[in-house]
């Protein structure tokens, strides 16, 4: 399995992300891993219109990104201050992470175009993105550039064995 793209946010169109092969791994800490044409992927960047928004304050914000080729479910965790997962980290760091997540949550509104980066994960068998970063794109041509980038990268980089040009 090619691990070249393990740590990069691979730019993918929704229909491509939804068609990734899911393989359950033997380790319980990383239950499923995703691959595309023999290349292991763990992080992705998607860009599209926010079409649904479900906010549970201090718990999570679940939203959907529609990029015209499919819908991707995204989860942004907002529970850093109460989660045992963060309890061993220094409180100022946790506060920073929590504030950033809260800021992202306030920017995500139905109808805006968002560029979302995160880990590819799975929930109830469906691919989703666990959000690490959000940028609201105000340039009306941003979506077009993203489609073209995804197509170019899929053809020149993600789909071939040779190194990227």
């Amino acid at each position, binding site marked *: 399995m090619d691990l070249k793209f393990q740590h990069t946010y691979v730019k993918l*169109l*929704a*229909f*491509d992300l939804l*068609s990734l*092969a899911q393989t359950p791994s033997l380790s319980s800490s990383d239950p499923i891993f995703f691959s595309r044409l023999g290349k292991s992927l763990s992080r992705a960047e998607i860009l599209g*219109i926010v*079409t*649904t928004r*479900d906010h*549970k304050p201090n718990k999570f914000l*679940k939203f*959907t990104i*529609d*990029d*015209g*080729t*499919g*819908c991707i479910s995204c989860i942004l965790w907002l529970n850093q201050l109460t989660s045992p997962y963060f309890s061993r980290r220094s409180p100022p760091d946790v506060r920073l992470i929590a504030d950033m997540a809260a800021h992202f949550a306030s920017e995500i509104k*139905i*109808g*805006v*175009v968002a560029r979302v980066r995160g880990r590819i994960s799975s929930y109830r068998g469906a691919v989703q993105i666990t959000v690490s970063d959000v940028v609201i794109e105000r*340039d*009306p*041509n941003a979506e*077009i550039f993203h*489609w*073209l980038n995804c*197509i170019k990268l*899929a053809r020149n980089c993600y789909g071939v064995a040779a190194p990227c040009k």
Partner: protein
Amino acid sequence: MAFPAIKSGELVTLKDLHPSSPLFKHGASLRVIGKLQEYTVETAIAIVVDGNAILKIDTQHLRDLSFRIGSVYQFIGELLIQPDDEAILQARVGRNVDGIDLNLYHQSLQLLRQFQADHLKNSTT
């Protein structure tokens, strides 16, 4: 928390939406783009145009969107086809896209469709 699956708005041009097209389906979730030609506040119906094609948009469910004649808008919604074959898009999302390069948009749409078709053809999983 149960969430009804929301369908993706398929990218179509207004020219694609004629009665003999496979995209002209009642209930289809579509994403359209066009210049605002007419808007009636009482009915919340907008008429958008792209080239020679026009489409009626029902904007009653949209919030925080101001309508300016001559501006370019993008809408995602479901297509309702009336008995006389007249179509209207029930928009659930809308945004002003003034500044968009429509030529680039249409060309990119073609490339995108080709890419999706190739992907389907080459898919082995």
